[in-house]
């Protein structure tokens, strides 16, 4: 269960990597964006997303008929790595590209695919994730938001929370209860609906992050009408679909590289100082990053080859260990190079340090806590 494929990049892949890298470097130079840690959550920039869409770099693995490029999972992996390593502002289209697209491709109707996917691929249509609710926390099955059947659709009432960037998104795929809650069969009666976030009855309220930044939201539904053609997959199958959706997001490089800019700046500072002892310590960080990256790429390869049944455990491991690694980066780095972390510091090291520290509490919580992941891994391992 631990044997993952190794990946040797082809020359074409290496060339693609350079293409992306050069593109990003150019835009950093031009001032299109300022690199930032954790940019896949906090770097919202619709005009940059459009630019990326124009390059064909959103939904690049999807069928061409839906606006995709039919490129490989490994190509997408490379692309994502380059975005993260350069701290590019990809947050606006992130979830639509990573989760919504694959979900719709798997469960969506032909109409939905034709309508949404090309828009997403252009970088013009953003989706929010509608799983968490107040008091549900790690216990997704306790979802309370309900949808009642009416003529031609559903009436939704309830509330979602921790919705990243809902305030700039166009739609949400919400997990809702389409049959009454039954404590015994909590997983039954859940369904997924696409909700237009501009629809009547939708209210979006910001939840300020501890820095005061606005990433998260509460989204309230007050008799929101959702037409029948916005049901994703089967009514009652929402639990399974929701879990599948989560699996897509466990093992990507964003579970390792959210603080990469700081690693990079650490090494640069140490090189400037000619500090060999410090670089030896940094090499330990790099070895951890390298070890995780092997896993993460291996999972991507496994996903590409369709070997989904062996993906769950290593994917959970990437997230559990990767996010702890991300969290450890500032704690290690600050012992190697003197710093006064400040969000508006001129020195990059101090700025990335502040970004990393202040964002770090989220790494091991968002999208399923480390504790939940441990349990999933253990249950998986023991069952084999």
């Amino acid at each position: 269960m631990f044997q993952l494929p190794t990946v040797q990049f082809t020359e074409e892949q290496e060339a693609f990597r350079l293409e992306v890298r050069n593109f990003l470097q150019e835009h950093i130079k031009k001032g299109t964006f300022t690199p930032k840690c954790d940019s896949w959550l906090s770097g919202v920039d619709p005009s940059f997303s459009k630019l990326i869409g124009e390059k064909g770099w959103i939904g690049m693995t999807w069928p061409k008929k839906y606006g995709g490029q039919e490129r490989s999972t490994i190509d997408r992996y490379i692309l994502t790595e380059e975005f993260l390593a350069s701290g590019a502002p990809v947050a606006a289209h992130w979830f639509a590209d990573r989760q919504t697209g694959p979900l719709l491709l798997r469960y969506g109707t032909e109409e939905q695919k034709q309508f949404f996917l090309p828009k997403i691929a252009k970088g013009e249509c953003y989706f929010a994730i509608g799983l968490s609710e107040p008091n549900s926390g790690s216990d997704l099955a306790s979802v309370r938001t309900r949808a009642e059947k009416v003529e031609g659709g559903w009436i939704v009432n309830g509330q979602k929370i921790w919705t990243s960037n809902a305030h700039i998104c166009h739609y949400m795929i919400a997990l809702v209860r389409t049959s009454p809650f039954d404590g015994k069969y909590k997983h039954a009666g859940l369904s997924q609906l696409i909700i237009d976030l501009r629809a009547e009855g939708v209210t979006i309220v910001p939840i300020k992050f501890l820095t005061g930044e606005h990433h998260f939201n509460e989204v309230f539904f007050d008799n929101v009408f959702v037409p029948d053609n916005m049901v994703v997959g089967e009514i009652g199958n929402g639990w399974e679909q929701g879990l599948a959706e989560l699996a897509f997001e466990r093992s990507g490089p964003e579970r390792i590289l959210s603080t990469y800019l700081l690693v990079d700046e650490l090494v640069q500072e140490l090189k400037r100082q000619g500090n060999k002892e410090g670089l030896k310590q940094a090499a330990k960080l790099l070895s951890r990053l390298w070890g995780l990256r092997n896993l993460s790429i291996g999972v991507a390869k496994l996903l590409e080859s369709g070997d989904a049944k062996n993906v769950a455990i290593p994917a959970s491991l990437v997230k559990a260990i990767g996010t702890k690694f991300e969290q450890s980066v500032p704690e290690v780095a600050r012992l190697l190079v003197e710093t006064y972390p400040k969000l508006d510091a001129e020195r990059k090291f101090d700025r990335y340090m502040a970004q990393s520290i202040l964002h770090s509490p989220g790494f091991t919580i968002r999208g399923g806590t480390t504790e939940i992941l441990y349990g999933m891994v253990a249950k998986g391992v023991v069952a084999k």
Partner: protein
Amino acid sequence: MSEMKEMILDVAERMLEDHVTKDVVDVLEKGEWAKDVWKLFEDNGMISVAVPEEKGGAGGDLEDLLNLVRLTGKYAAPIPFAETTFANFLLETGNLETVDQVATYSLQEGLSLQNGQISGTLDNVPWARHAKHLVALVQKQIALIDLADATIQPGSNMAGEPRDTVILNNAKVQSSSLLTDEQIFHLKSIETAFKIALMTGAIEKINQLSVQYSKEREQFGRPIHRFQLVQYQIAQLAGETAIALAAFNNVCAAVQSDKVLHEIAFARIRFEDAITTVTAVSHQLHAAIGTTHEHALHQYTRRLWSWRDEGTSADYWSGHIADYLLNHDDDLWAYLTKTTGAAVKN
């Protein structure tokens, strides 16, 4: 500590509990500060608690003062209490007259003194914009400066506390006094003790918030403190809190008996572990809610993250211990067992 002292601290704690609510701490982010709380402290004689009565102070001792500082840390009180009282401690060390308005201080290098005038730039001076006085170390002298004579550029640390740039251009020295190297080292020690006090308070509060949350929050149908991994988190927090408090108390005892002060070095070094653990574990325990601005947790974790890189660093103290070990032949065990309860002057 005497019962009398405990009573004073109880009063101070109740005052802080009543007046320093989360909203009051938040005012910092609008560039304001808690003048009312400052007034309360003033009215209760707390600003001058370690200033001897004959000099017009309230006549407590350093242990009292450190405990008050700990309490301001425990409530994240947005007032320059530690700064003002330490500035006065600096003045006293130089045998200079203390001040009774808001003051701040700097032990940074880089100032120059010529003809009774000081020039240079100081980074990240706490609370400068709200302070009347600056007490600074300039070429082994302790000097009092009126901040009206300085240019101040506002800035803030990761917790939103004022950390300003102070530019001095031939600023007039109000009073000054030459210190010995030993005195300067002692100042660094006591400054570190102040930091330890603040940090201890914040750690206590984080522990309290976490235990409380673990009882209130339910998941999968039961309070989360019933889950073994949350128990592990609670135990880690309890451990770091107990160690921090014991370290702080030992520091107080050492300072009090004027026995300097490997206690301070060890405590400060040990707080690095404590801060890493306490901030990470408490946030993990609180999960999403703890990452919101609305919840109070970040008022303490952000302060710990900021404070640990301010003032004399743990790295300095590790170096201090390393030098001591390199330059002394005594057996390590003899050295360690002497640090508690016996004088080990450097």
